[in-house]
């Protein structure tokens, strides 16, 4: 070191010529010792810094590995979920086998999905590690954990909903005696008019469908049909509601009249029924049910405590006497 060399030079001269030095350099406050010490300190810090930087490199590499790991899984899971969604929607929309076959197919998908859950859990594990390491972005994949979560939730909901739809179609088919061919025809019509291809018709689609079947509808009539077919005002016509509407004449169900006739028998032909008769003729639970729900009968010849089974029967079927 040149600077320290100067100091040595001074010492040498002093020694050679026997000059006694005060030891203080008037021109500066820095002693050679200071310089030497500081240089040692600097030298000491270099490897420390190096080490710190190396550690950081390792940390960043580990982070990168986490990113890649997450991405590798996410890039498989994301498309898998999408594919399943599409396949499931095809099962319900396509006109393939019988409803039971559809159901089997859907149940298989359901099992498939249940078995796949472990992959989602693993991804969540990696995601947790990522977040704990303060990794907030990942250029190796377009799927964030949130994307996957949302997709997964949608998938679970879709499969459950679709299975339920098929169950309900089976109920309807059995109750109304609709054949598979008829169901297929309905499906074909429905699909044709479902322009958005989302498994539901909006009112315009439905109207077009009705017109194509020869219904000549005015505004009022169409509005009335819409309230039948979409009573909860969701704005869409489901396949279920569609089938229902198309087969509304063919159900063999109890009617209000039949129930009334039954009550009449129990009431020994009277137009009202008494609490005693109800308790005598019906099991206790049903008797109390009727007693608590029936209104008082208002008529010329009725005793107090007479109950009106006629309006009760109508109300059961939503027919109001008003």
């Amino acid at each position, binding site marked *: 070191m040149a600077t320290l060399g100067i100091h040595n030079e001074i010492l040498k001269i002093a020694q050679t010529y026997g000059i006694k030095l005060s030891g203080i350099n008037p*021109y500066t*406050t820095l002693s050679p010792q200071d310089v030497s010490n500081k240089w040692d300190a600097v030298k000491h810090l270099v490897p420390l810094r190096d080490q710190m930087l190396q550690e950081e490199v390792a940390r960043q590499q580990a982070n990168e590995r986490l990113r890649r790991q997450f991405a590798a899984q996410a890039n498989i899971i994301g498309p898998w979920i999408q594919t399943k969604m599409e396949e499931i929607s095809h099962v319900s929309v396509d006109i393939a086998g019988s409803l039971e076959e559809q159901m089997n197919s859907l149940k298989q998908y359901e099992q498939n999905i249940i078995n796949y859950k472990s992959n989602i859990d693993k991804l969540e594990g990696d995601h947790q590690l990522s*977040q704990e390491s303060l990794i907030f972005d990942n250029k190796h994949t377009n799927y964030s954990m949130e994307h996957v979560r949302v997709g997964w939730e949608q998938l679970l909901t879709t499969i459950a909903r679709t299975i339920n739809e098929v169950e309900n179609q089976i109920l309807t088919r059995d*109750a109304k005696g609709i054949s598979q061919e008829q169901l297929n025809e309905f499906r074909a019509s429905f699909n044709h008019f479902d322009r958005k291809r989302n498994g539901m018709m909006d009112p315009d689609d439905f109207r077009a469908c009705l017109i194509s079947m020869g219904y000549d509808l005015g505004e009022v009539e169409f509005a009335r049909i819409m309230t039948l077919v979409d009573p909860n005002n*969701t704005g869409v016509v489901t396949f279920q509601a569609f089938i229902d509407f198309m087969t509304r004449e063919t159900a063999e169900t109890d009617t209000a009249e039949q*129930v009334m*006739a*039954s009550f009449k028998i129990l009431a020994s032909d009277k137009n009202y029924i008494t609490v005693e008769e109800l308790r005598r003729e019906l099991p206790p639970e049903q008797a109390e*049910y009727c007693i608590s729900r029936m209104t008082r009968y208002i008529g010329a010849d009725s005793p107090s405590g007479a109950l009106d089974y006629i309006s009760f029967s109508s109300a059961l079927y*939503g027919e109001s006497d008003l």
Partner: protein
Amino acid sequence: MMTMTQVETTVHYDNGYEDEYMLQEDEWDRDMLLDPAWEQQQRKTFTAWCNSHLRKAGTQIENIEEDFRNGLKLMLLLEVISGERLPKPDRGKMRFHKIANVNKALEFITSKGVKLVSIGAEGGLTFRDCGRECKDDSWNDLDYHPPLRHSGHFSGRNICQRRSSAVVSEKDCPLQECQCPKLPCQDDPLGNLNLAFDIAEKHLDIPKMLDAEDIINTPKPDERAIMTYVSCFYHAFAGAEQAETAANRICKVLGVNQENEKMMEEYERLASELLEWIRRTTPWLENRTPEKTMAEMQRKLEDFRDYRRQHKPPKVQEKCQLEINFNTLQTKLRISNRPAFMPSEGKMVSDIASAWQGLEQAEKGYEEWLLTEIRRLERLDHLAEKFRQKATNHENWASGKELILSQKDYETATLIEIRALLRKHEAFESDLAAHQDRVEQIAAIAQELNELDYHDVAAVNQRCQSICDLWDKLGTLTQKRRESLERTEKLLETIDQLFLEFAKRSAPFNNWMEGAMEDLQDMFIVHTTEEVQSLISGSRAVQSYST
């Protein structure tokens, strides 16, 4: 007088009997009409039978002759039995009123195709017609095997078995179970009969029209009485059958209704719970109060992860289940021809959908906010630490400098020392310049800490301020010292120059003075005044020289 005809000793259960029975009828008519025991039995049976029907109209009779005299109760009886309304009775108390009523009754009966034997309004009704009045086909349906073809024993078993066979033809008569085990193969006819009558009265509402002792002890019990009694069984069951069908139908319908109602309640309950959970959870997701440290924020992030992984999935499933329940319920209602389900206010499908949407919106915003905050806090932590380090370094460097710079050591310094001091000061000035950068950096960091809203920014600002103030002061002091040093240098230089000047001048003058002193003190020997005069001018010249 009765004749006993012993035909068989065992009971036959085939229909061959009917012909014989019919043949015997007229014979019995004649014989039995005169028997008081028979009449008593008849009366009892008949009264009880009438009452079993009259009960439905809310009335009873005690004595046949008396109570049917005015025809009112008779008409009532007929109404009950036939299920039809008779013309309105005359309510007068006069005999002709009563006759009119009874006639109305009789007309009614005739209109039903029943042959009335030896009665008129003025007489009484016999027993037989009442039996006929009850739905004609009942005789055919009833699997009737006259127990009288038995040797005088009347085993209670026959009635019971007959009833059993009638019972067996009904589907789910619950009474069978409790009765049949009690009908043993004992030979206790009296016991069996009484048991049977008891059960019939209790469970089938058939009053005891027969007397067990009478029947057993009478060699030929009255067939008609027994038939009437048995026909009550038939009607109990037939009527019961019809009623049962009606009741079953009603139960089925009500069952469907109850099931539907249960599903509706379930929907409402699940909807309430889900909406409540959403109401509780949404504020937590919307809360954006920042935390101070990164550790706290990371905990919040962890909580959010737990929410997404553990708390939300079951709710997603609940929502799905709610939807499914709703759809299934609507389907079932449609299929069973019931009106569609309208959930109560606030629990409609649309309400739930929009609440759920609100939740998911809040969720999305929340995670983004968490990540932004964590990034911000990470940078802040880093900057704060950097500030601390730099500020400390600077403060260490700056400590004592003020004092040094304020020294007045130049006041007692020599020129050489001043020059050395100036060298040192130059070194210090370059040191100061080198630190200018650092101070600017410190200020810049403090600025960023302010912009990023560091929680302890007040302390930072204070420290930064004191550093800057000191820095300014040091700058000023440095300047001042330089001036002082330079000034002092100049002065000392001037003094030095003057010293030199003095030295330059004083030396030769000193020499001259010393010469003059010697001269002035020189030994002189003079011989002339002229020699003295030249010495005097010489010393006077010295005088003038000094001025």
